């Protein structure tokens, strides 16, 4: 019928609307019907324009590609085309479907697509690439090594969108490659709060494992204490205190524990997530605190976990399981919330039993009376499974807390007269366990129970009573033989477990009171000899040999009494949740108390501190836009390697700052310099401190680093190196150069001034290659603010080469651009020949992708190569846009909230009128003025060059030089940087 149905559909398809036809598929797939016969007809539609049809084709394709591999290949080219689409969403969706097709033949294509997407400029495409990694890995595990490379690259990504997905890929492909995390650890901690909730869960779980391998146990000094106090768990408080004091005295001699600042960073950044609406996130943070936090701080998670108990019953179930484990280790933490675990009659049974477990774990001397009163009401419940569990809980309380043992026992004995047999049976079992602790005092209870045996039918309970009588037959010498007599009568009708206990009772009585019971015992053993169950037959034969003396009986029978009536230790009633915490809490394995596939063990704390410096990030001075980095090839080799942010290295360069500086730098640079000096002095001081404190200091400084703040010391150092080399040059040539420079600047100004948009202020020249490093070739560049005609998404950079040597320079060109993902360069045409003493100006285009990351490349002449980099000030990443006042307001309205950054400032002394403000702002950023009715307000508009996001700037001025600067931009980073720069320009 199914085939018929499909065939019909197929014919239908010939005549009917494609859309209509496709609606049937989800129905078929959803019901699990096989619709693979239609594959060719469907795949044809893959290039269909209609988005919905397209999506449905995708669904179909992914579902059946595995079965129809050859045909699936037909569709691949469509996706390959999609991967090149200018629209990021289309690129992403093409990659998503392509990577979901489980056909091994296309593995190389997928690999290539993933690699390409991993360096896509759109974070959304990169996220999709991260998602594709586990897909490819499950399809072909041999690609693992290559995929790890991609993961490594994506881990370094700074966007929140990618972070969660790539960590998920990491967990699936290479969870043991902890070394990949080091460099990204701080960044992940800092991004965490902004990552989407599902990503948060994955990251937190991974970081828990990471922290266990990299930091020391914060409770290391207490772990010894814990062991000793556990033994004295239910002993009185005084004893415990004394113990603690003694321990503390020995511990005081040991090295004090200092928490690694990175460890602290993790704890601090995860804490706010306890307020998440997502239960999984809360649980993840809770387990992180449980496994990683110092004992004193774990308590904060209790409140959040108790809150989760209000959620759906499935959530409750999982949370209670985890709470049950936690209460064993850290009872105190949940004690204030005792009442939240009280049981309602409407709770599902499984929840009731878990709550009972928690309540039992929480019981101590102070609250036991309230808990027992609560238990008493539970016993009256209609839910019999729950009643049975309650009785067991009472038993556990009684064994753990000595003071209430008698009360509990009395209560349980009263239950023996309960009408419900299950209740009685459960009580008997529990009483048996309790009596074993002090049988002498309770012979009357044993007597009472002996009487019960006539009424109780539950096998386990009967067996328990028989065992009790046998074990303590000396306490009830008169009743015991009588019970045996009765049992012998019904022996054949009993359950196996009861039969075994009858034999047991008989044997014990024979040993203690053989006069009365000899015949009975023989009788029982004979019955057992012919029992159907071989266990019982075996047992009977064994016991007969052991107790009945014959001439053949071995040496063992002498010890029969010792064997049977040895003192038996009382059973320990303990929670089934004990020791479950060796599984990571919140995990599936913990819930099942068994290792699930793919579970990563929670490592033990390391004995000694692993090297904390592995997490130090080599800082790229990403935002020091004002300055050109001046590096020749030799320097970059020796420089960047040794500079790698180790704190002591940096502070070592402090003395250099005392050297005299040149005067040609602009004012703002000098200011920066001042700051840097101060900073260096501070670092010098820290050097003197202990290493632990130093790393604490580092923690204060570094978390920001990954969020693109520049590292001051390093910047300074580079600057100084530039200074030094410059000083080496002779005074004379310095002067000449300055004059020449001035001339050149004027020339440029003249040329640019002709442009329509260029601001009235001068254009700043930046140095790309100093004449000395460049061995006579000096290169300067400026942002001409002209549209770059070959590609409107690029920023035009005007580069001027001056040949100061005595010979010609040939073949000037660019090589090996090393760019951040998404960045592009359009090189200038090679300059074939540059005569000595001449200057040549060329224009090149760089797409910075709206970031202030530097574009690195090599500048080559016929003899030498120079590593250089161009870093744009944020203001140069935009082009002016003309807006009317109304349009401006409308656009501004759309860019509110997180897209708006506002700062108050005091205008500098020179900013006396509107004109100066306009000049300053336009000099800082490539924006155009927007007409405005009010004199007190200046508005500017522009858009970013590569993505065309609007950038709106408003500067309303108030009396007395106060002003407010507001920047609206969808790209928050651009907005923040721009605010900083304009503020600086205006407050001078």
């Amino acid at each position: 019928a199914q085939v018929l149905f499909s065939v019909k559909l197929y014919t239908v398809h010939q005549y009917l609307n494609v859309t209509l036809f496709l609606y049937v598929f989800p129905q078929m797939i959803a019901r699990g019907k096989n619709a693979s016969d239609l594959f060719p007809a469907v795949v044809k539609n893959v290039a269909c324009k209609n988005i919905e049809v397209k999506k449905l084709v995708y669904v179909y394709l992914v579902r059946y590609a595995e079965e129809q591999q050859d045909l699936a290949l037909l569709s691949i080219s469509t996706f390959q085309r999609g991967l090149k689409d200018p629209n990021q969403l289309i690129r992403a969706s093409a990659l998503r479907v392509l990577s979901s097709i489980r056909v091994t033949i296309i593995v190389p294509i997928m690999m290539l697509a993933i690699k390409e997407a991993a360096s896509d400029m759109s974070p959304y495409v990169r996220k999709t690439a991260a998602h594709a990694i586990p897909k490819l890995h499950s399809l072909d595990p041999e690609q693992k090594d290559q995929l790890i490379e991609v993961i490594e690259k994506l881990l370094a990504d700074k966007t929140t969108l990618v972070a969660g997905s790539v960590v998920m890929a990491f967990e699936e492909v290479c969870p043991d490659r902890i070394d990949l995390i080091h460099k990204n650890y701080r960044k992940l901690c800092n991004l965490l709060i902004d990552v989407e909730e599902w990503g948060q869960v994955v990251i937190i779980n991974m970081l828990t494992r990471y922290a266990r391998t990299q930091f020391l146990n914060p409770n290391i000094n207490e772990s010894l204490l814990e062991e000793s106090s556990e033994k004295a768990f239910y002993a009185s408080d005084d004893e415990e205190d004394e113990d603690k004091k003694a321990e503390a005295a020995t511990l005081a001699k040991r090295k004090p524990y200092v928490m690694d600042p990175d460890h602290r960073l993790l704890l601090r950044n995860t804490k706010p997530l306890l307020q998440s609406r997502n239960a999984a996130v809360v649980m993840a943070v809770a387990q992180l605190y449980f496994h990683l936090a110092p004992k004193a701080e774990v308590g904060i998670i209790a409140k959040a976990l108790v809150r989760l108990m209000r959620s759906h019953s499935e959530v409750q179930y999982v949370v209670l399981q985890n709470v049950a484990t936690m209460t064993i280790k850290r009872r105190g933490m949940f004690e204030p919330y005792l009442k939240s675990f009280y049981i309602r009659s409407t709770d599902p049974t499984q929840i009731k039993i878990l709550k009972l477990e928690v309540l039992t774990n929480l019981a101590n001397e102070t609250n036991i009376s309230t808990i027992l009163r609560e238990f008493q009401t539970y016993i009256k419940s209609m839910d019999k499974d729950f009643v049975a569990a309650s009785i067991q809980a009472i038993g556990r309380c009684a064994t753990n807390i000595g003071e209430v043992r008698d009360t509990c026992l009395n209560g349980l004995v009263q239950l023996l007269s309960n009408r419900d047999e299950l209740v009685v049976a459960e009580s008997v079992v529990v009483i048996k366990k309790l009596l074993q602790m002090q049988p002498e005092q309770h012979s009357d209870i044993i007597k009472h129970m002996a009487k019960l045996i006539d009424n109780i039918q539950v096998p386990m309970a009967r067996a328990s009573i028989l065992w009790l009588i046998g074990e303590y037959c000396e306490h009830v010498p008169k009743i015991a033989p009588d019970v045996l007599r009765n049992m012998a009568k019904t022996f054949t009708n009993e359950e196996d477990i009861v039969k075994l206990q009858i034999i047991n009772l008989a044997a014990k009585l024979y040993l203690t009171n053989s006069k009365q019971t000899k015949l009975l015992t023989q009788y029982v053993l004979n019955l057992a000899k012919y029992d159907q169950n071989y266990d019982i037959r075996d047992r009977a034969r064994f016991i007969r040999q052991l107790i009945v003396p014959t001439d053949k009986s071995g040496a063992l029978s002498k010890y029969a009494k010792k064997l049977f009536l040895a003192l038996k230790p009382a059973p320990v009633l303990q929670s089934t949740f004990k020791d479950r915490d060796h599984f990571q809490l919140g995990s599936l394995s913990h819930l099942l108390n068994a290792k699930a596939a793919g579970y990563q063990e929670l490592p033990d704390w390391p004995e000694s501190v692993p090297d904390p410096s592995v997490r130090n990030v080599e800082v790229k001075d990403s935002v020091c836009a004002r300055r050109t980095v001046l590096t020749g090839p030799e320097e970059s080799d020796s420089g960047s390697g040794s500079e790698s942010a180790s704190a002591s290295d940096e502070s070592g360069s402090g003395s250099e700052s005392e050297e005299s500086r040149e005067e040609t730098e602009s004012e703002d640079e000098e200011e920066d310099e001042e700051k840097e000096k101060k900073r260096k002095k501070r670092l010098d001081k820290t050097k003197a401190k202990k290493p632990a404190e130093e790393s604490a200091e580092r923690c204060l400084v570094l978390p920001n680093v990954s969020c693109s703040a520049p590292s001051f010391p390093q910047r300074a150092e580079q600057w100084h190196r530039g200074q030094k080399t410059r000083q080496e040059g002779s005074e004379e040539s310095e002067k000449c150069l300055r004059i020449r420079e001035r001339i050149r600047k004027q020339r440029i100004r003249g040329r640019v001034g002709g442009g329509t948009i260029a601001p009235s202020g001068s254009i700043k020249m930046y140095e790309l290659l100093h004449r000395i490093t460049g061995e006579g070739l000096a290169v300067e560049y400026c942002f001409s603010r002209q549209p770059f005609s070959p590609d409107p998404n690029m920023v035009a950079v005007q580069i001027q080469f001056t040949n100061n040597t005595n010979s010609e320079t040939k073949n000037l060109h660019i090589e090996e651009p090393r760019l951040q993902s998404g960045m592009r360069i359009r090189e200038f045409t090679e300059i074939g020949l540059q005569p000595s003493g001449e200057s040549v100006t060329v224009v090149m285009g760089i797409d910075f992708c709206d970031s202030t990351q530097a574009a690195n490349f090599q500048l080559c002449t016929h003899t030498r190569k120079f590593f250089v980099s161009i870093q744009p000030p944020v203001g140069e990443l935009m082009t002016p846009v003309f807006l009317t006042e109304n349009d401006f307001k409308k656009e501004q309205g759309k860019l509110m909230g997180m897209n708006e950054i506002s700062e108050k400032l005091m205008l500098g002394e020179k900013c006396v009128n509107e004109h100066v403000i306009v000049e300053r702002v336009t000099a800082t950023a490539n924006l155009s003025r927007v007409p405005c009715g009010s004199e007190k307000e200046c508005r500017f508009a522009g858009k970013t060059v590569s993505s065309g996001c609007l950038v709106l700037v408003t500067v309303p001025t108030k009396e007395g030089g106060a002003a407010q600067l507001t920047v609206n931009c969808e790209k928050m980073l651009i907005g923040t940087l721009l605010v900083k720069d304009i503020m600086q320009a205006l407050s001078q």
Partner: protein
Amino acid sequence: MIHSLFLVNASGDIFLEKHWKSVVSRSVCDYFFEALERATEPENVPPVIPTPHHFLINVLRHRIYFVAVIQSEVPPLFVIEFLHRVVDTFQDYFGVCSEAAIKDNVVVVYELLEEMLDNGFPLATESNILKELIKPPTILRTVVNTITGSTNVGEQLPTGQLSVVPWRRTGVKYTNNEAYFDVVEEIDAIIDKSGSTITAEIQGVIDACVKLTGMPDLTLSFMNPRLLDDVSFHPCVRFKRWEAERILSFIPPDGNFRLLSYHVSSQNLVAIPVYVKHNISFREGSSQGRFELTLGPKQTMGKAVESVLVSSQLPRGVLNANLSPSQGTYTFDPVTKLLSWDVGKINPQKLPSLKGSVSLQTGASKPDENPTINIQFKIQQLAISGLKVNRLDMYGEKYKPFKGIKYMTKAGKFQVRT
């Protein structure tokens, strides 16, 4: 992570399946059906069921089991929370989440599931983004679609996924700009036999319905924020601001959402708005039992207690109940032994009561368990914790929105033990 999803209805049929990785045979659900059979009540099915090769994680909502198939280690709450999110999304889209609704909209359901998970890892779960991708079906649109042949899938590309504010779409426009906030508090309490409170706590939520043009930035402040003991936020709320100033500052999602849920701890004294006088007794040897219930208001701050509904699970030995209510109606189901009494409004002058006798099965002995009484009620215009919203301000947009705040108190899990 999540391998496949099966939807199972109350009668144990799989009516929808969806696979995100390779196909898992639906026979894997046999393990679930076994567990279902073992469980006495539908809600007693363990949420996590291990099978030889897979793990089944299920949630029960609206009498549908959502069974997710897992192959390797994953935090169970992750899956459970996601499944609930799926149900919420269905509810959001179709109004109800029932078998019929899902079957009627199977295409939309499929598209939704496709967008929500990629290779088993959540991709887009924010309702705002989803609605941009897939338009919710309305009657009008269905009609239009059948005539014109157009579809539910959004024609524009979903830019929301790229936004910094993923919960709000851009370019929202309304002619009437409104923002409504409902402060709803639920009292969870256990009252013992003698009428004293064993435990009581207040769980509150602030549900919002915000229909505002553009990108408004709202701040909501309370008169007495210290009351809130433990809070959890919608991701839109700026946590730092709350930490520092106890002010809720947020760019709201468009439409309905839960802004905040909070907890007022049991350490604070909780006002209990109703009391119950009860006398339920069975005599030994007789087949009759006495049953008397009287309700009365207590600490209601002068507000009326409405929509009162009393229910109680009577002992198994009870055969029938013969009662007479002073107001409202009562029903007794002899099979499930569930007694429920729809009281309506409590009139302080004339207290509602339910009196009469219950008959026991012949030969059944006196039941020794006591039924517990569950009570539901509503009190309008009152937040029982005393929480008050101080003011709501809007920044970033020029128009003046219409603002409204409503308070309500409800009974949560309110039980009286007898």
